[in-house]
């Protein structure tokens, strides 16, 4: 299936693909995922050659500017890529589903919600405005064969309480009677009611005020711990996940350009794009005067380079190789230079980046 991963041929590169620490149980395993949209200029990949592991009991933050393919990746996890797009290659394994990309019809419908809970980017309006919330939860339960209304409602009330919502009032309310923050929490209730082990939240705090943001993030952390979920939080704002995520995955132009434990990625970002994202945020870069907006604009489907590094048009470090060869994800090393001749480099635990300059392939094994 790895038709587009020419750079993965070396054994070093392949082992470096996985961020999973030994002993962690995979919640979701995405391999070689490619999502293509039909455009007037032909098929264009919005997600390309993505490998991603979401271990149970961890939170992964997926960051990148808008248009990098984050939502498309999340929708692909539900096998719900909107037309004119489709999953062109790859597999998505969930604890209860061998390969989400191969499901269709009723099996797919039943897997949605049960195998993977999804909190929508526009969760503000993810409910039928004409129906009470409790009644919609019952619709959801019924759709997945949960005939025991009582048990379902008990679970719903308990979840509401966990979210800090008044259960009775919330379940008998209509969507418009809830504030933005409450709606988002109700969105999480809907995502968790069928007990999935994987939870995907697309921009869960966008459009919320600061206090609601805080509350929602706290709740995510809290249910995550309680339910031992594999959580993926998608955001264009790296600051949102800086404290929350165990792992960071950085996407650009449909590709994963860097990933690794949050601490490492934030402290020693290897990829120039990750550096740029971090530098753009005052809270993390530390100094509001030094916060630098990332120059240039993210590519859209039509302007993503087909060959070479996707970031090269905005990259200050680009070399000739960058325009001909697509960099693969390689282990990131920290190098301390003692003098001109002696180098001492150490592998940073599980951190990988796709950059010819910052994370070069071991020279002997480069395959062009």
């Amino acid at each position, binding site marked *: 299936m790895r038709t587009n991963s020419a750079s993965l041929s070396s054994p070093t590169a392949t082992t470096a693909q996985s961020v999973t620490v030994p002993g962690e149980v995979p919640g979701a395993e995405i391999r070689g995922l490619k999502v293509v949209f039909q455009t007037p200029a032909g098929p264009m990949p919005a997600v390309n050659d993505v490998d991603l592991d979401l271990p149970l009991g961890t939170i992964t933050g997926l960051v990148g500017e808008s248009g990098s393919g984050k939502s498309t990746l999340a*929708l692909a996890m539900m096998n719900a890529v909107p037309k004119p797009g489709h999953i062109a290659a790859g597999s998505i394994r969930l604890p209860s589903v061998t390969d989400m990309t191969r499901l269709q019809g009723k099996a797919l419908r039943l897997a*949605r919600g049960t195998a993977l809970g999804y909190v929508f980017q526009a969760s503000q309006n*993810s409910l*039928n*405005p004409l129906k009470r919330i409790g009644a919609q939860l019952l619709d959801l339960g*019924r*759709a997945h064969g949960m005939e025991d209304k009582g048990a379902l409602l008990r679970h719903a009330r308990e979840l509401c309480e966990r979210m800090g919502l008044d259960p009775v009032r919330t379940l008998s309310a209509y969507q418009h009677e809830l504030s933005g923050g409450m709606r988002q929490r109700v969105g999480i209730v809907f995502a968790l009611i069928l007990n999935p082990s994987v939870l995907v939240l697309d921009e869960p705090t966008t459009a919320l005020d600061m206090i609601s943001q805080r509350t929602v993030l706290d709740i995510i952390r809290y249910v995550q711990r309680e339910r031992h979920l594999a959580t993926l939080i998608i955001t264009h704002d790296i600051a949102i996940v800086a404290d929350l995520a165990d792992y960071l995955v950085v996407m650009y132009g449909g590709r994963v350009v860097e990933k690794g434990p949050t601490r490492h990625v934030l402290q020693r970002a290897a990829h120039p794009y990750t550096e740029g994202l971090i530098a753009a945020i005052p809270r993390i870069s530390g100094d509001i005067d030094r916060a630098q907006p990332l120059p240039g604009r993210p590519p859209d489907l039509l302007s993503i380079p087909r060959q070479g590094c996707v970031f090269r048009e905005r990259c200050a470090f680009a070399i000739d190789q960058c325009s001909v060869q697509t960099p693969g994800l390689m282990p990131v090393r920290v190098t301390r230079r003692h003098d001109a001749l002696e180098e001492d480099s150490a592998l940073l635990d599980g951190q990988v980046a796709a950059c010819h300059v910052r994370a070069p392939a071991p020279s002997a094994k480069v395959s062009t």
Partner: protein
Amino acid sequence: MSPDSPPSVKVTTGSGKARWARLGRRLGARVLTGVVMVLAVATLTFFLVHSMPGNPIQTEYQTLIARGVSPSLAAQQVAGMYGFVSSKPLIDQYGQYMWHLLQFNLGKSITASGEPVVHLVLSAAPWTIIPVLSGLIVSFLLGVSLGAVAAVRRTNRLGKVLSVSGSLFHGVPQFVWAVMLAYLFTTLLPIFPFGSPYNILDTPGWNGPFILSLVYSAILPVLAYALSSYGGWLLTMRSSVVTVLGDDFVLAAELRGLRPLTQLRYVARNAFLPLFTTLLLSVGFMFGGSIFIEEVFDYPGLGYQLVNAVNARDYPLMSGDFLFITVAVIAANILADFLYTFIDPRVRKAA
């Protein structure tokens, strides 16, 4: 806030009693505005009607002359009408008209020899209301269901054919439908009766043959109403469904794995909502159509009565017909507004 002690949040939902009180107040206010509007329209029509060129006696006189009646005989016949035509100043007539109106007295018809206008209007009303409502219901049900199909199937042949049919039907005015149907099915292919709302050989009353002939004669007018509004319903429903299909909650329902039938119900109810108001508001439009349709099918309804009243300058009857139509439209408006609060929870709060 600590994640272990989430804050309790209050949700505002209207309690039963307060809601009914609110609804009652709202309805009261709407009815009051409605009454004021009716009085305003009554005033307007009174002066408009009386400012029409010509007067009843002169018009009748000329009609008689045109029919070949000798001037002296015509003058003699017309003399009988003087008793019904007021010669007071217009402003005094207006005062009297409004005063009577408040007592539900619309005056006496000039042409129908002093018959109370209220009687005339009420006896004509069923001939309009029943076909109008039947046509409305038929076209609404047909247009709305096919519009939903046209929206869901909008990318394939069926959807496109339905949309085109909607545009075509919508483009044809009511009177063209009436003339076309009359020509096709009473002249070219004479399978329907013409010129009477029932078979004159049957004895009027609650008997089978009479009712059957009523229904039979009503088919063409009802069809004319239905065909003239079918296209509008189809197009409106189609665009409403397309809009709702693009709403976030529809995608959400799909991604949560709701049953296809449940998803359809969610979409249908949301798409139907804006049409519901239009349905009641279109009552006025249908009444307008009755003027042509009843003329073509010789149907003794309000439209037919109104045209004759205008031609004869029968001021009280004209005003009475206008007023009845106004009241019907305003009542439909209030009903729409009121019922809407029941089917859309979002306006309940604003109520």
